[in-house]
């Protein structure tokens, strides 16, 4: 095939690793981010604002700062390492943890907005129809927040694919373990392999365009279906 000529084994390996990282990260983000978004949307008081600020930090922090602290937290001498019995830095699992922290605001914010836009009424209605809070969360709140969940998942996925600084700091570039697309492109450029850098960079540009366009179209359709 033409692609076989276009991509060599190392490129395919890095692409697959990136997709795997983004997929696992997105799943974890949805599992962690949805309850967090629910709590942020429903609770009041200082704690909510403190937590919301912490969640938003990765938006403004330089990825190197975030990566630096994550590296220390996952390094050989950290309490986390002692707790787990092994270090997470320079492993795939470590990359997942770093990516989750880094992409958290991009997932939590759209979901939280969707929960807030819903207002308190649907949950009240569900309660008066004998649905327990947990039941109502799954049968009413989640379906109503589906467009927000969808946006959050896409943003989390795309943002993880696109990260560079954090990955480099905590994962380095071990082929097949932590060497993701952005790091590979950086390597190609450093070693003056312009053609290969072009192929991967162009591919990512095209993919990002398609993802964002598809997301906007899908979101519009979802919202229309709700009218």
């Amino acid at each position, binding site marked *: 095939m033409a692609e076989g000529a276009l991509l060599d084994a190392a490129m395919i390996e890095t692409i697959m690793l990136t997709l795997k990282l983004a997929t696992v990260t997105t799943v974890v983000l949805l599992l962690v981010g949805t309850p967090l978004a629910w709590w942020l949307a429903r609770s009041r008081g200082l704690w909510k604002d403190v937590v919301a600020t912490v969640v938003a930090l990765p938006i403004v922090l330089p990825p190197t700062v975030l990566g630096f602290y994550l590296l220390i937290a996952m390094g050989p001498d950290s309490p986390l390492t002692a707790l787990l019995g092994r270090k997470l830095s320079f492993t795939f699992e470590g990359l997942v943890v770093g990516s989750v922290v880094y992409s958290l605001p991009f997932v939590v914010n759209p979901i939280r907005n969707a929960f807030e836009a819903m207002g308190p009424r649907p949950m009240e209605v569900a309660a008066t129809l004998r649905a327990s809070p947990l039941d109502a969360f799954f049968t*009413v709140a989640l*379906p109503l927040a589906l467009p927000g969940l969808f946006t959050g998942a896409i943003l989390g996925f795309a943002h993880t694919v696109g990260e560079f600084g954090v990955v480099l700091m905590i994962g380095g570039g071990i082929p097949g373990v932590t060497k993701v697309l952005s790091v590979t492109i950086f390597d190609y450029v450093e070693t003056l392999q312009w053609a290969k850098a072009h192929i991967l960079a162009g591919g990512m540009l095209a993919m990002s365009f398609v993802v964002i366009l598809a997301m906007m179209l899908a979101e519009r359709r979802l919202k229309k279906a709700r009218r």
Partner: protein
Amino acid sequence: MIEASFRGRLGSFDLDVGFAVPGRGITALFGPSGCGKTTVLRAVAGLMRLPGGQLCVNGAQWQAGRRFVPPHRRAIGYVFQEASLFPHLSVEANLRFGLRRARCAPRIGMDDVVALLGIAPLFDRPAEMLSGGERQRVAIGRALLSQPDLLLMDEPLSALDRFSKDDILPYLERLHAALSIPVLYVSHDIAEVERLADTLVLMQAGRVRAAGPIADLLADPALPLIHLPEPAAVIDGKVIASDPQYGLCDVNVPGGVVVVPGDLGPPGTRCRLRIPASDVSLGRHVPLDTTILNALPARIEGAETTRDHQMTVRLRLGADGEGAALLARVSRKSWDRLGLHQGEQVVARLKAVALAESGPPSGPVPDPAENRRG
């Protein structure tokens, strides 16, 4: 029996309400906007927790001291001001939401609700495609299917236009007649209350001003209802005979028999009459040559002067003055000219008797204007 007492802060004033009303029929919480009616209803539902509140509904203690049953464990149905159907579910799935989760064997089935509310044609439509009135009917059905022991309705008609209101009212009346579930009904519209309520809880600025049977409260000189621009009496009666040739019915009410236009159904049918005070005039004798059909003996209980030189006269029907309460609005001049006074036996002439409740909703909803006749 529904016994409630709640205390709490409510915007600019304190809420301090307590009432005990019968555990059957429709009880209206009536008062001006912002007097705390909705807060009380939400507290009864458990959607709002007012510490120190007490609530006992037909023997079930839902709140007392530390005890607070969460809303999903209370056997209530709640109809909100806006229908609040779940937009992600079809009409049918909305209806089944509460039915599936009911904690007892269904007493009210899907077929009953569909027939009662006329919602069969709406089944496959998405909730968002319904009109306001249709949506509210589905919301009422959804609440009923959750098998409530108490139905709470928070101004269910106030978000609707006149047309949709007239569309829904007959269904509410039918509900009232067909089901034995007690209803707490919040409203600031006296016309709705006169039409539907058996018991009235009159609220004012966070307090209960009075509570009791609606007919008594409407005619109570100490309460503001009698001073409304168009005071009226409501009288519950039973059809005893019909005269299809003239399109009239005889309705037995406490203290007399009233002739009412329209076909109200076979003898034994219950109905509610609304008699505006301005349609009642007073005399000493039964008039002989008049087009007025209804001239009933009554006794004057008292009279209040209104601002515009009119008198609102409180009457009780019957020769002994023990029957239903009636109001008459007469000019002060006529009052003085006839020399009327409290305790006197008079003849009340009813220019118009309108049904407060319209007929069953299967047919066209009768226009109240057509029910007026002398």
